[in-house]
Protein backbone atom coordinates (compact mmCIF):
# COMPACT_ATOMS: atom_id res chain seq x y z
CA UNK A 1 0.00 0.00 0.00
CA UNK A 2 1.07 3.52 -0.55
CA UNK A 3 1.24 5.54 2.59
CA UNK A 4 0.27 8.73 0.89
CA UNK A 5 -3.22 9.06 -0.47
CA UNK A 6 -3.24 10.56 -3.91
CA UNK A 7 -6.43 12.30 -4.79
CA UNK A 8 -5.77 11.51 -8.41
CA UNK A 9 -5.30 13.92 -11.23
CA UNK A 10 -6.13 17.22 -9.58
CA UNK A 11 -3.48 19.62 -8.48
CA UNK A 12 -3.06 19.55 -4.73
CA UNK A 13 -1.70 22.86 -3.71
CA UNK A 14 -0.78 24.04 -0.27
CA UNK A 15 -4.40 25.02 0.48
CA UNK A 16 -5.63 21.56 -0.30
CA UNK A 17 -3.07 20.19 2.11
CA UNK A 18 -4.39 22.58 4.69
CA UNK A 19 -7.89 21.23 4.24
CA UNK A 20 -6.75 17.66 4.24
CA UNK A 21 -4.24 18.45 6.92
CA UNK A 22 -6.05 17.14 9.90
CA UNK A 23 -2.52 15.85 10.37
CA UNK A 24 -1.57 12.92 12.48
CA UNK A 25 -0.46 12.63 16.00
CA UNK A 26 2.59 10.60 16.89
CA UNK A 27 2.21 8.53 19.99
CA UNK A 28 5.08 6.83 21.78
CA UNK A 29 3.55 4.21 24.03
CA UNK A 30 6.21 3.08 26.50
CA UNK A 31 8.77 2.77 23.71
CA UNK A 32 12.17 1.51 24.74
CA UNK A 33 15.22 0.87 22.56
CA UNK A 34 18.32 -1.12 23.38
CA UNK A 35 21.47 -1.85 21.43
CA UNK A 36 22.43 -5.27 22.74
CA UNK A 37 22.13 -4.96 26.47
CA UNK A 38 22.71 -1.21 26.40
CA UNK A 39 19.39 0.56 26.90
CA UNK A 40 19.51 3.89 25.07
CA UNK A 41 15.84 4.77 25.34
CA UNK A 42 14.00 3.99 28.55
CA UNK A 43 10.26 3.40 28.21
CA UNK A 44 9.12 6.64 26.66
CA UNK A 45 5.56 7.84 26.55
CA UNK A 46 4.98 10.97 24.57
CA UNK A 47 2.17 12.35 22.44
CA UNK A 48 2.80 14.79 19.64
CA UNK A 49 -0.50 16.42 18.68
CA UNK A 50 -1.56 16.78 15.04
CA UNK A 51 -0.02 19.88 13.55
CA UNK A 52 2.29 20.38 16.49
CA UNK A 53 6.01 21.05 16.30
CA UNK A 54 7.71 19.12 19.05
CA UNK A 55 11.36 19.92 19.54
CA UNK A 56 13.32 17.16 21.16
CA UNK A 57 16.46 18.59 22.67
CA UNK A 58 19.13 17.27 24.97
CA UNK A 59 22.84 16.71 25.20
CA UNK A 60 24.77 14.50 22.81
CA UNK A 61 24.00 10.82 23.26
CA UNK A 62 20.76 11.40 25.14
CA UNK A 63 18.73 9.34 22.67
CA UNK A 64 17.08 12.00 20.49
CA UNK A 65 18.08 10.49 17.17
CA UNK A 66 17.17 7.06 18.48
CA UNK A 67 13.64 8.21 19.30
CA UNK A 68 13.28 9.81 15.86
CA UNK A 69 14.61 6.72 14.09
CA UNK A 70 12.16 4.59 15.99
CA UNK A 71 9.35 6.64 14.46
CA UNK A 72 10.93 6.40 11.02
CA UNK A 73 11.29 2.64 11.37
CA UNK A 74 15.06 2.32 11.36
CA UNK A 75 15.41 1.06 14.90
CA UNK A 76 13.09 -1.54 16.35
CA UNK A 77 11.77 -0.79 19.80
CA UNK A 78 12.62 -3.45 22.35
CA UNK A 79 9.20 -2.84 23.86
CA UNK A 80 6.25 -0.53 23.44
CA UNK A 81 4.25 0.62 20.44
CA UNK A 82 4.41 3.62 18.14
CA UNK A 83 1.24 4.96 16.59
CA UNK A 84 0.91 7.55 13.86
CA UNK A 85 -2.68 8.69 13.70
CA UNK A 86 -4.82 5.62 14.04
CA UNK A 87 -2.15 3.31 12.64
CA UNK A 88 0.14 1.23 14.80
CA UNK A 89 3.34 1.50 12.78
CA UNK A 90 5.58 -0.47 15.13
CA UNK A 91 5.75 -3.42 12.73
CA UNK A 92 5.51 -1.51 9.47
CA UNK A 93 8.61 -1.13 7.29
CA UNK A 94 9.85 2.47 6.87
CA UNK A 95 8.51 2.73 3.32
CA UNK A 96 4.96 2.18 4.47
CA UNK A 97 4.92 4.78 7.22
CA UNK A 98 4.14 7.87 5.15
CA UNK A 99 6.75 10.11 6.71
CA UNK A 100 9.12 12.73 5.46
CA UNK A 101 12.61 12.74 6.84
CA UNK A 102 15.41 15.29 6.67
CA UNK A 103 18.82 14.45 8.05
CA UNK A 104 21.76 16.52 9.16
CA UNK A 105 23.86 16.15 6.02
CA UNK A 106 20.79 16.43 3.71
CA UNK A 107 21.58 13.15 1.88
CA UNK A 108 20.44 14.50 -1.47
CA UNK A 109 20.93 11.85 -4.12
CA UNK A 110 24.05 13.13 -5.89
CA UNK A 111 23.28 11.44 -9.19
CA UNK A 112 19.90 13.12 -9.57
CA UNK A 113 18.99 16.66 -10.44
CA UNK A 114 17.12 18.73 -7.88
CA UNK A 115 13.78 18.04 -9.55
CA UNK A 116 14.45 14.30 -9.61
CA UNK A 117 15.42 14.34 -5.96
CA UNK A 118 12.15 16.03 -5.13
CA UNK A 119 10.21 13.67 -7.38
CA UNK A 120 11.87 10.60 -5.89
CA UNK A 121 9.25 9.73 -3.29
CA UNK A 122 6.33 10.18 -5.65
CA UNK A 123 7.99 8.09 -8.35
CA UNK A 124 8.85 5.39 -5.85
CA UNK A 125 5.20 5.30 -4.84
CA UNK A 126 4.09 5.10 -8.46
CA UNK A 127 2.25 8.43 -8.72
CA UNK A 128 1.14 9.67 -12.17
CA UNK A 129 3.43 11.84 -14.17
CA UNK A 130 1.29 15.01 -14.24
CA UNK A 131 0.78 14.83 -10.50
CA UNK A 132 4.51 14.42 -9.94
CA UNK A 133 5.21 17.45 -12.11
CA UNK A 134 2.79 19.63 -10.17
CA UNK A 135 3.93 18.43 -6.77
CA UNK A 136 7.60 18.93 -7.57
CA UNK A 137 6.88 22.48 -8.75
CA UNK A 138 4.84 23.18 -5.63
CA UNK A 139 7.37 21.75 -3.24
CA UNK A 140 10.26 23.62 -4.85
CA UNK A 141 8.25 26.84 -4.83
CA UNK A 142 7.40 26.37 -1.17
CA UNK A 143 11.09 26.36 -0.26
CA UNK A 144 11.99 29.03 -2.81
CA UNK A 145 14.10 26.76 -5.00
CA UNK A 146 12.00 26.70 -8.18
CA UNK A 147 14.77 28.16 -10.32
CA UNK A 148 17.24 25.47 -9.25
CA UNK A 149 15.25 22.49 -10.52
CA UNK A 150 17.79 21.49 -13.18
CA UNK A 151 20.86 21.72 -10.97
CA UNK A 152 22.72 18.84 -9.42
CA UNK A 153 23.08 18.85 -5.61
CA UNK A 154 26.82 19.46 -5.89
CA UNK A 155 26.03 22.76 -7.60
CA UNK A 156 24.12 24.08 -4.57
CA UNK A 157 25.19 25.73 -1.33
CA UNK A 158 24.54 24.05 2.00
CA UNK A 159 21.46 26.14 2.74
CA UNK A 160 20.06 25.47 -0.73
CA UNK A 161 20.68 21.75 -0.36
CA UNK A 162 18.81 21.82 2.90
CA UNK A 163 15.83 23.49 1.26
CA UNK A 164 15.80 20.85 -1.44
CA UNK A 165 15.94 18.14 1.22
CA UNK A 166 12.90 19.69 2.87
CA UNK A 167 11.11 20.00 -0.48
CA UNK A 168 11.85 16.34 -1.17
CA UNK A 169 10.30 15.36 2.13
CA UNK A 170 7.27 17.61 1.61
CA UNK A 171 6.57 16.45 -1.94
CA UNK A 172 5.12 13.15 -0.73
CA UNK A 173 2.70 15.07 1.53
CA UNK A 174 3.84 13.25 4.63
CA UNK A 175 1.65 12.93 7.68
CA UNK A 176 4.63 13.67 9.84
CA UNK A 177 7.91 15.40 9.11
CA UNK A 178 10.98 14.16 10.95
CA UNK A 179 13.89 16.57 11.13
CA UNK A 180 17.13 15.39 12.71
CA UNK A 181 19.41 18.34 13.37
CA UNK A 182 18.55 19.71 9.95
CA UNK A 183 20.45 22.96 10.40
CA UNK A 184 23.50 21.92 12.34
CA UNK A 185 25.71 21.78 9.25
CA UNK A 186 24.93 25.40 8.40
CA UNK A 187 26.64 28.46 9.77
CA UNK A 188 24.94 30.67 12.34
CA UNK A 189 23.61 33.34 9.97
CA UNK A 190 22.00 30.91 7.51
CA UNK A 191 20.73 28.85 10.40
CA UNK A 192 18.78 31.80 11.78
CA UNK A 193 17.22 32.42 8.39
CA UNK A 194 16.36 28.77 7.95
CA UNK A 195 14.70 28.60 11.35
CA UNK A 196 12.49 31.48 10.33
CA UNK A 197 11.77 29.77 7.04
CA UNK A 198 10.78 26.55 8.70
CA UNK A 199 8.48 28.53 10.96
CA UNK A 200 6.93 30.19 7.91
CA UNK A 201 6.66 26.84 6.20
CA UNK A 202 4.76 25.43 9.13
CA UNK A 203 2.39 28.39 9.09
CA UNK A 204 1.57 27.54 5.48
CA UNK A 205 1.16 23.84 6.31
CA UNK A 206 -0.45 24.04 9.74
CA UNK A 207 -1.62 20.45 9.64
CA UNK A 208 1.89 19.04 9.39
CA UNK A 209 3.15 17.38 12.53
CA UNK A 210 6.86 17.94 13.01
CA UNK A 211 9.30 16.13 15.23
CA UNK A 212 12.34 18.36 15.34
CA UNK A 213 15.49 16.95 16.92
CA UNK A 214 18.18 19.44 17.81
CA UNK A 215 20.67 20.25 20.48
CA UNK A 216 20.30 23.94 19.78
CA UNK A 217 17.93 25.50 22.28
CA UNK A 218 17.44 28.64 20.19
CA UNK A 219 16.02 26.58 17.33
CA UNK A 220 13.77 24.77 19.77
CA UNK A 221 12.55 27.93 21.49
CA UNK A 222 11.91 29.69 18.18
CA UNK A 223 10.08 26.89 16.42
CA UNK A 224 8.49 24.53 18.83
CA UNK A 225 5.00 24.45 20.27
CA UNK A 226 6.25 21.98 22.78
CA UNK A 227 9.65 20.84 23.89
CA UNK A 228 10.77 17.51 25.25
CA UNK A 229 14.11 17.55 26.98
CA UNK A 230 16.02 14.29 26.83
CA UNK A 231 18.64 13.15 29.23
CA UNK A 232 20.28 9.73 29.38
CA UNK A 233 17.55 8.11 27.33
CA UNK A 234 14.65 9.57 29.28
CA UNK A 235 12.41 12.57 28.82
CA UNK A 236 13.24 14.68 31.83
CA UNK A 237 10.66 17.33 31.03
CA UNK A 238 8.00 17.93 28.42
CA UNK A 239 5.62 20.81 27.98
CA UNK A 240 4.62 23.91 26.07
CA UNK A 241 7.70 25.89 25.11
CA UNK A 242 6.99 29.10 27.00
CA UNK A 243 5.85 27.28 30.08
CA UNK A 244 8.91 25.05 30.14
CA UNK A 245 11.05 28.13 29.81
CA UNK A 246 9.22 30.20 32.42
CA UNK A 247 8.57 27.44 34.93
CA UNK A 248 11.21 24.75 34.44
CA UNK A 249 10.21 21.72 36.50
CA UNK A 250 13.74 20.67 37.41
CA UNK A 251 17.35 21.75 37.56
CA UNK A 252 18.41 20.07 34.32
CA UNK A 253 15.65 21.74 32.32
CA UNK A 254 16.36 25.14 33.85
CA UNK A 255 20.05 24.92 33.06
CA UNK A 256 19.77 23.30 29.64
CA UNK A 257 17.07 25.66 28.39
CA UNK A 258 18.51 29.14 28.62
CA UNK A 259 21.24 28.50 31.18
CA UNK A 260 19.22 29.70 34.16
CA UNK A 261 20.82 30.70 37.46
CA UNK A 262 19.72 28.51 40.34
CA UNK A 263 20.07 29.92 43.83
CA UNK A 264 19.69 27.40 46.63
CA UNK A 265 17.04 28.70 49.03
CA UNK A 266 14.94 27.54 51.98
CA UNK A 267 11.23 28.18 51.69
CA UNK A 268 9.93 30.55 54.36
CA UNK A 269 6.32 30.61 53.33
CA UNK A 270 4.59 28.60 50.59
CA UNK A 271 2.80 30.20 47.66
CA UNK A 272 -0.17 32.33 48.58
CA UNK A 273 -3.28 33.01 46.47
CA UNK A 274 -1.24 35.12 44.03
CA UNK A 275 1.22 32.28 43.52
CA UNK A 276 4.20 33.88 45.22
CA UNK A 277 6.27 32.23 47.90
CA UNK A 278 9.04 33.66 50.04
CA UNK A 279 12.35 31.94 50.51
CA UNK A 280 15.60 32.66 52.26
CA UNK A 281 19.02 32.67 50.61
CA UNK A 282 21.62 33.22 53.32
CA UNK A 283 20.11 36.06 55.26
CA UNK A 284 18.14 37.69 52.45
CA UNK A 285 14.51 36.88 51.92
CA UNK A 286 13.38 36.73 48.31
CA UNK A 287 9.99 36.46 46.67
CA UNK A 288 9.39 34.14 43.74
CA UNK A 289 6.68 32.29 41.83
CA UNK A 290 6.02 29.12 43.79
CA UNK A 291 4.34 25.77 43.16
CA UNK A 292 3.48 23.62 46.08
CA UNK A 293 6.48 24.22 48.33
CA UNK A 294 5.98 24.30 52.05
CA UNK A 295 7.84 26.22 54.69
CA UNK A 296 11.20 24.65 55.42
CA UNK A 297 11.59 22.93 52.02
CA UNK A 298 14.96 23.12 50.35
CA UNK A 299 14.37 24.67 46.94
CA UNK A 300 16.05 26.38 43.99
CA UNK A 301 15.18 29.86 42.83
CA UNK A 302 15.48 30.05 39.06
CA UNK A 303 16.40 33.43 37.55
CA UNK A 304 17.35 33.96 33.91
CA UNK A 305 20.57 35.93 33.25
CA UNK A 306 18.69 38.58 31.28
CA UNK A 307 16.26 39.17 34.15
CA UNK A 308 18.94 40.32 36.57
CA UNK A 309 19.53 44.03 36.63
CA UNK A 310 22.32 46.10 38.10
CA UNK A 311 19.95 49.00 38.72
CA UNK A 312 16.96 49.10 41.07
CA UNK A 313 13.45 50.01 40.00
CA UNK A 314 9.96 49.56 41.35
CA UNK A 315 9.43 46.16 39.63
CA UNK A 316 12.69 44.63 40.74
CA UNK A 317 11.89 44.22 44.38
CA UNK A 318 14.28 41.33 45.06
CA UNK A 319 17.84 42.25 45.88
CA UNK A 320 20.90 40.04 46.27
CA UNK A 321 24.53 41.01 46.53
CA UNK A 322 27.39 39.22 44.86
CA UNK A 323 31.10 39.61 44.19
CA UNK A 324 31.89 40.44 40.57
CA UNK A 325 34.24 37.86 39.08
CA UNK A 326 34.27 38.33 35.32
CA UNK A 327 33.03 40.79 32.72
CA UNK A 328 32.68 39.82 29.07
CA UNK A 329 31.64 42.52 26.68
CA UNK A 330 29.92 41.19 23.55
CA UNK A 331 28.66 44.20 21.71
CA UNK A 332 24.97 44.51 22.36
CA UNK A 333 25.19 42.31 25.45
CA UNK A 334 27.53 42.32 28.40
CA UNK A 335 27.93 39.13 30.36
CA UNK A 336 28.87 39.32 34.00
CA UNK A 337 29.67 36.45 36.32
CA UNK A 338 29.19 37.02 40.03
CA UNK A 339 29.63 34.91 43.10
CA UNK A 340 26.53 34.99 45.27
CA UNK A 341 27.17 33.13 48.50
CA UNK A 342 29.21 30.47 46.68
CA UNK A 343 26.83 30.12 43.72
CA UNK A 344 28.04 31.46 40.37
CA UNK A 345 25.41 33.80 38.94
CA UNK A 346 25.40 34.94 35.31
CA UNK A 347 23.98 38.28 34.26
CA UNK A 348 23.33 39.37 30.69
CA UNK A 349 22.81 43.10 30.63
CA UNK A 350 21.92 45.41 27.77
CA UNK A 351 22.32 48.60 29.73
CA UNK A 352 24.99 49.08 32.34
CA UNK A 353 25.59 51.76 34.92
CA UNK A 354 27.96 54.38 33.57
CA UNK A 355 30.65 53.44 36.05
CA UNK A 356 31.20 49.71 35.50
CA UNK A 357 32.26 48.00 38.72
CA UNK A 358 35.70 46.37 38.82
CA UNK A 359 36.10 42.61 39.33
CA UNK A 360 36.21 41.95 43.07
CA UNK A 361 33.63 44.64 43.83
CA UNK A 362 30.45 43.86 45.75
CA UNK A 363 27.57 44.44 43.36
CA UNK A 364 23.84 44.44 44.15
CA UNK A 365 21.53 42.64 41.72
CA UNK A 366 17.81 43.31 41.36
CA UNK A 367 15.08 41.16 39.90
CA UNK A 368 11.30 40.92 39.77
CA UNK A 369 9.39 38.11 41.53
CA UNK A 370 7.44 37.49 38.30
CA UNK A 371 10.68 36.63 36.51
CA UNK A 372 11.54 33.83 38.93
CA UNK A 373 10.28 30.42 39.74
CA UNK A 374 10.94 28.00 42.52
CA UNK A 375 11.76 24.43 41.69
CA UNK A 376 12.40 21.52 43.96
CA UNK A 377 16.02 20.80 44.83
CA UNK A 378 15.81 17.02 44.48
CA UNK A 379 14.00 16.87 41.15
CA UNK A 380 17.13 17.03 39.04
CA UNK A 381 16.50 13.49 37.72
Amino acid at each position, binding site marked *: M*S*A*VTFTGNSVMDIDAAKVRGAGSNVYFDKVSVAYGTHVVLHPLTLDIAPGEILAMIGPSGSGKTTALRAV*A*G*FVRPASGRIRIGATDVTDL*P*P*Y*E*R*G*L*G*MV*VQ*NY*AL*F*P*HMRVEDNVA*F*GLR*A*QGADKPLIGERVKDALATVGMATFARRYPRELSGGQQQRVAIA*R*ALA*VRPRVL*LLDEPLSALDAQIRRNMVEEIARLHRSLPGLTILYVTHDQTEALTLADKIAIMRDGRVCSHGPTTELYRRPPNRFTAEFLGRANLLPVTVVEGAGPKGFATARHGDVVLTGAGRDERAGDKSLLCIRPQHLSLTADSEHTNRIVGTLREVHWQGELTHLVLDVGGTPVRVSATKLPTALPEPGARVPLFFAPTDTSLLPEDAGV
Partner: protein
Amino acid sequence: MLVWSRPGRIVLWMLFALIFGVLFLAPLAVILLSSLADQWNGVLPRGLTTAHYADVARGAAWNSVKASLITGFAASALALVSGTWAALSLRLQGPALKRLLGLLFFIPSAVPSVSVGLGLLVAFSHPPLLLNGTIAIVMISHFVLISAFTFGNVSAGLARLSPDFEQVASSLGARPAYRLWHVTLPLLAPYLVAAFGLSFALSMGELGATVMVYPPGWVTLPVSIFSLTDRGDIFAGAALTMILVAATLILLLGLERVTKRATGA
Protein backbone atom coordinates in the same frame (compact mmCIF):
# COMPACT_ATOMS: atom_id res chain seq x y z
CA MET B 1 52.62 16.86 -2.09
CA LEU B 2 53.96 16.87 1.40
CA VAL B 3 57.42 18.01 0.37
CA TRP B 4 57.57 21.72 -0.28
CA SER B 5 61.17 22.44 -1.10
CA ARG B 6 62.02 22.38 -4.79
CA PRO B 7 65.09 20.10 -4.57
CA GLY B 8 63.13 17.76 -2.33
CA ARG B 9 60.38 17.51 -4.88
CA ILE B 10 62.85 16.89 -7.71
CA VAL B 11 64.47 14.07 -5.75
CA LEU B 12 61.06 12.53 -5.07
CA TRP B 13 60.08 12.69 -8.70
CA MET B 14 63.32 11.10 -9.76
CA LEU B 15 62.84 8.32 -7.26
CA PHE B 16 59.33 7.78 -8.54
CA ALA B 17 60.49 7.77 -12.16
CA LEU B 18 63.24 5.33 -11.31
CA ILE B 19 60.97 2.86 -9.55
CA PHE B 20 58.22 3.16 -12.10
CA GLY B 21 60.65 3.03 -15.00
CA VAL B 22 62.62 0.05 -13.77
CA LEU B 23 59.80 -2.07 -12.40
CA PHE B 24 56.98 -1.28 -14.80
CA LEU B 25 58.22 0.23 -18.01
CA ALA B 26 61.47 -1.65 -18.56
CA PRO B 27 59.88 -5.12 -18.85
CA LEU B 28 57.19 -3.77 -21.14
CA ALA B 29 59.77 -1.98 -23.25
CA VAL B 30 61.81 -5.16 -23.54
CA ILE B 31 58.76 -7.10 -24.64
CA LEU B 32 57.86 -4.40 -27.13
CA LEU B 33 61.37 -4.45 -28.55
CA SER B 34 61.43 -8.25 -28.74
CA SER B 35 58.14 -8.27 -30.58
CA LEU B 36 59.78 -6.07 -33.22
CA ALA B 37 63.28 -7.60 -33.14
CA ASP B 38 64.79 -9.35 -36.11
CA GLN B 39 67.51 -10.89 -34.01
CA TRP B 40 68.58 -10.09 -30.49
CA ASN B 41 71.94 -11.29 -29.23
CA GLY B 42 73.68 -8.21 -27.82
CA VAL B 43 72.43 -5.44 -25.58
CA LEU B 44 70.03 -4.15 -28.21
CA PRO B 45 68.22 -6.03 -30.94
CA ARG B 46 69.69 -6.07 -34.40
CA GLY B 47 67.19 -4.92 -36.99
CA LEU B 48 63.47 -4.29 -36.59
CA THR B 49 60.65 -6.18 -38.28
CA THR B 50 56.89 -6.64 -38.10
CA ALA B 51 57.23 -10.22 -39.24
CA HIS B 52 56.32 -11.63 -35.82
CA TYR B 53 53.02 -9.78 -35.85
CA ALA B 54 52.33 -11.11 -39.32
CA ASP B 55 53.19 -14.60 -38.11
CA VAL B 56 50.91 -14.57 -35.12
CA ALA B 57 48.15 -12.94 -37.16
CA ARG B 58 48.40 -15.82 -39.62
CA GLY B 59 48.30 -18.26 -36.73
CA ALA B 60 45.59 -18.60 -34.12
CA ALA B 61 46.06 -15.09 -32.68
CA TRP B 62 42.58 -13.81 -33.45
CA ASN B 63 40.94 -16.87 -31.99
CA SER B 64 42.97 -16.32 -28.85
CA VAL B 65 41.98 -12.67 -28.67
CA LYS B 66 38.36 -13.66 -29.10
CA ALA B 67 38.59 -16.41 -26.46
CA SER B 68 40.26 -14.07 -23.99
CA LEU B 69 37.83 -11.23 -24.52
CA ILE B 70 34.75 -13.41 -24.25
CA THR B 71 36.10 -15.23 -21.21
CA GLY B 72 37.10 -11.95 -19.60
CA PHE B 73 33.75 -10.36 -20.21
CA ALA B 74 31.66 -13.30 -19.13
CA ALA B 75 33.69 -14.07 -16.02
CA SER B 76 33.87 -10.41 -15.01
CA ALA B 77 30.17 -9.84 -15.53
CA LEU B 78 29.37 -12.93 -13.50
CA ALA B 79 31.82 -11.90 -10.80
CA LEU B 80 30.38 -8.40 -10.74
CA VAL B 81 26.84 -9.63 -10.27
CA SER B 82 27.67 -12.23 -7.66
CA GLY B 83 30.28 -10.11 -5.86
CA THR B 84 27.83 -7.22 -5.61
CA TRP B 85 25.09 -9.52 -4.50
CA ALA B 86 27.33 -11.07 -1.86
CA ALA B 87 28.50 -7.69 -0.61
CA LEU B 88 24.93 -6.41 -0.40
CA SER B 89 23.62 -9.40 1.48
CA LEU B 90 26.63 -9.72 3.76
CA ARG B 91 26.06 -6.13 4.81
CA LEU B 92 22.91 -7.26 6.59
CA GLN B 93 24.71 -9.96 8.57
CA GLY B 94 26.41 -9.71 11.92
CA PRO B 95 30.06 -8.64 11.97
CA ALA B 96 31.40 -12.11 12.82
CA LEU B 97 29.70 -13.86 9.92
CA LYS B 98 30.63 -10.96 7.68
CA ARG B 99 34.30 -11.32 8.47
CA LEU B 100 34.27 -15.10 8.07
CA LEU B 101 32.49 -15.10 4.71
CA GLY B 102 34.58 -12.18 3.56
CA LEU B 103 37.71 -14.19 4.27
CA LEU B 104 36.35 -17.29 2.52
CA PHE B 105 35.86 -15.23 -0.60
CA PHE B 106 39.56 -14.43 -0.70
CA ILE B 107 40.87 -17.97 -0.27
CA PRO B 108 41.04 -18.69 -4.02
CA SER B 109 43.33 -15.69 -4.43
CA ALA B 110 45.68 -17.02 -1.78
CA VAL B 111 45.97 -20.45 -3.40
CA PRO B 112 48.19 -20.91 -6.49
CA SER B 113 45.93 -20.56 -9.49
CA VAL B 114 47.26 -23.87 -10.82
CA SER B 115 45.77 -25.54 -7.76
CA VAL B 116 42.46 -23.83 -8.34
CA GLY B 117 42.48 -25.17 -11.89
CA LEU B 118 43.40 -28.61 -10.67
CA GLY B 119 40.66 -28.51 -8.06
CA LEU B 120 38.05 -27.57 -10.62
CA LEU B 121 39.31 -30.24 -12.99
CA VAL B 122 38.91 -32.93 -10.33
CA ALA B 123 35.65 -31.58 -8.97
CA PHE B 124 33.92 -31.40 -12.33
CA SER B 125 35.21 -34.58 -13.87
CA HIS B 126 32.23 -36.82 -13.09
CA PRO B 127 28.62 -36.66 -14.15
CA PRO B 128 26.41 -34.91 -13.32
CA LEU B 129 29.07 -32.27 -12.91
CA LEU B 130 31.02 -33.11 -16.00
CA LEU B 131 32.49 -29.88 -17.27
CA ASN B 132 35.93 -30.98 -18.33
CA GLY B 133 36.76 -29.94 -21.83
CA THR B 134 34.09 -27.26 -21.95
CA ILE B 135 34.41 -23.49 -22.27
CA ALA B 136 32.31 -23.18 -19.12
CA ILE B 137 35.06 -24.56 -16.92
CA VAL B 138 37.45 -21.88 -18.19
CA MET B 139 34.95 -19.21 -17.28
CA ILE B 140 34.27 -20.81 -13.92
CA SER B 141 37.95 -20.89 -13.07
CA HIS B 142 38.32 -17.22 -13.95
CA PHE B 143 35.20 -16.41 -12.01
CA VAL B 144 36.52 -18.18 -8.92
CA LEU B 145 39.81 -16.32 -9.12
CA ILE B 146 38.46 -12.83 -9.68
CA SER B 147 35.24 -12.72 -7.71
CA ALA B 148 37.11 -11.91 -4.49
CA PHE B 149 38.24 -8.65 -6.06
CA THR B 150 34.78 -7.58 -7.15
CA PHE B 151 33.48 -8.52 -3.74
CA GLY B 152 36.26 -6.55 -2.07
CA ASN B 153 35.75 -3.49 -4.24
CA VAL B 154 31.99 -3.40 -3.85
CA SER B 155 32.22 -4.04 -0.09
CA ALA B 156 34.60 -1.12 0.23
CA GLY B 157 32.17 1.05 -1.71
CA LEU B 158 29.25 -0.02 0.44
CA ALA B 159 31.17 0.64 3.63
CA ARG B 160 31.73 4.21 2.50
CA LEU B 161 28.12 4.75 1.54
CA SER B 162 26.30 6.74 4.21
CA PRO B 163 23.22 4.83 5.37
CA ASP B 164 21.35 8.15 5.19
CA PHE B 165 20.79 7.86 1.45
CA GLU B 166 19.04 4.55 1.68
CA GLN B 167 17.13 5.48 4.81
CA VAL B 168 15.84 8.69 3.30
CA ALA B 169 14.83 6.72 0.22
CA SER B 170 12.93 4.23 2.37
CA SER B 171 11.20 6.90 4.36
CA LEU B 172 10.03 8.47 1.10
CA GLY B 173 8.27 5.23 0.28
CA ALA B 174 10.84 3.39 -1.84
CA ARG B 175 10.58 -0.37 -1.52
CA PRO B 176 13.85 -2.33 -1.26
CA ALA B 177 14.08 -3.25 -4.95
CA TYR B 178 13.30 0.30 -6.09
CA ARG B 179 15.78 1.67 -3.61
CA LEU B 180 18.50 -0.75 -4.74
CA TRP B 181 18.04 0.10 -8.39
CA HIS B 182 17.61 3.86 -8.08
CA VAL B 183 19.78 4.73 -5.12
CA THR B 184 22.22 2.07 -3.94
CA LEU B 185 23.52 0.83 -7.29
CA PRO B 186 23.91 4.28 -8.88
CA LEU B 187 25.80 5.47 -5.82
CA LEU B 188 28.01 2.37 -6.07
CA ALA B 189 28.58 2.83 -9.80
CA PRO B 190 32.19 4.03 -9.55
CA TYR B 191 33.07 1.00 -7.43
CA LEU B 192 31.24 -1.34 -9.78
CA VAL B 193 33.12 0.03 -12.76
CA ALA B 194 36.44 -0.24 -10.94
CA ALA B 195 35.59 -3.78 -9.89
CA PHE B 196 34.71 -4.76 -13.44
CA GLY B 197 37.86 -3.20 -14.83
CA LEU B 198 40.06 -4.97 -12.33
CA SER B 199 38.38 -8.35 -12.86
CA PHE B 200 38.64 -7.95 -16.59
CA ALA B 201 42.33 -7.13 -16.45
CA LEU B 202 42.97 -10.05 -14.11
CA SER B 203 41.06 -12.41 -16.35
CA MET B 204 42.90 -11.26 -19.47
CA GLY B 205 46.21 -12.16 -17.84
CA GLU B 206 45.14 -15.38 -16.12
CA LEU B 207 47.36 -18.33 -16.98
CA GLY B 208 47.81 -20.87 -14.15
CA ALA B 209 44.28 -22.16 -13.86
CA THR B 210 43.48 -21.75 -17.55
CA VAL B 211 46.38 -23.96 -18.54
CA MET B 212 44.92 -26.74 -16.40
CA VAL B 213 41.39 -26.57 -17.72
CA TYR B 214 41.28 -25.09 -21.24
CA PRO B 215 39.66 -27.21 -23.95
CA PRO B 216 41.02 -27.38 -27.48
CA GLY B 217 39.66 -24.49 -29.50
CA TRP B 218 39.49 -22.12 -26.54
CA VAL B 219 43.12 -21.09 -26.16
CA THR B 220 43.29 -17.76 -24.36
CA LEU B 221 46.03 -15.24 -25.11
CA PRO B 222 48.17 -16.07 -22.05
CA VAL B 223 48.01 -19.77 -22.89
CA SER B 224 49.06 -19.03 -26.49
CA ILE B 225 51.88 -16.84 -25.28
CA PHE B 226 52.97 -19.50 -22.84
CA SER B 227 53.07 -22.24 -25.45
CA LEU B 228 54.89 -20.00 -27.95
CA THR B 229 57.60 -19.08 -25.46
CA ASP B 230 57.69 -22.65 -24.23
CA ARG B 231 58.55 -23.71 -27.75
CA GLY B 232 61.29 -21.07 -27.77
CA ASP B 233 59.42 -18.69 -30.05
CA ILE B 234 60.15 -15.70 -27.82
CA PHE B 235 59.56 -13.07 -30.48
CA ALA B 236 56.15 -14.36 -31.46
CA GLY B 237 55.24 -14.62 -27.77
CA ALA B 238 56.25 -11.01 -27.33
CA ALA B 239 54.15 -9.94 -30.30
CA LEU B 240 51.15 -11.74 -28.85
CA THR B 241 51.79 -10.13 -25.48
CA MET B 242 51.65 -6.70 -27.07
CA ILE B 243 48.34 -7.65 -28.66
CA LEU B 244 47.08 -8.71 -25.24
CA VAL B 245 48.19 -5.43 -23.69
CA ALA B 246 46.57 -3.44 -26.47
CA ALA B 247 43.30 -5.34 -26.28
CA THR B 248 43.08 -4.90 -22.51
CA LEU B 249 43.97 -1.22 -22.65
CA ILE B 250 41.51 -0.44 -25.43
CA LEU B 251 38.77 -2.18 -23.53
CA LEU B 252 39.47 -0.50 -20.22
CA LEU B 253 39.69 2.93 -21.83
CA GLY B 254 36.46 2.29 -23.70
CA LEU B 255 34.79 1.25 -20.47
CA GLU B 256 35.94 4.42 -18.79
CA ARG B 257 34.55 6.59 -21.57
CA VAL B 258 31.21 4.84 -21.56
CA THR B 259 30.76 5.22 -17.81
CA LYS B 260 31.91 8.82 -17.88
CA ARG B 261 29.24 9.59 -20.38
CA ALA B 262 26.64 7.58 -18.46
CA THR B 263 27.28 9.16 -15.07
CA GLY B 264 27.72 12.64 -16.53
CA ALA B 265 30.91 13.13 -14.57
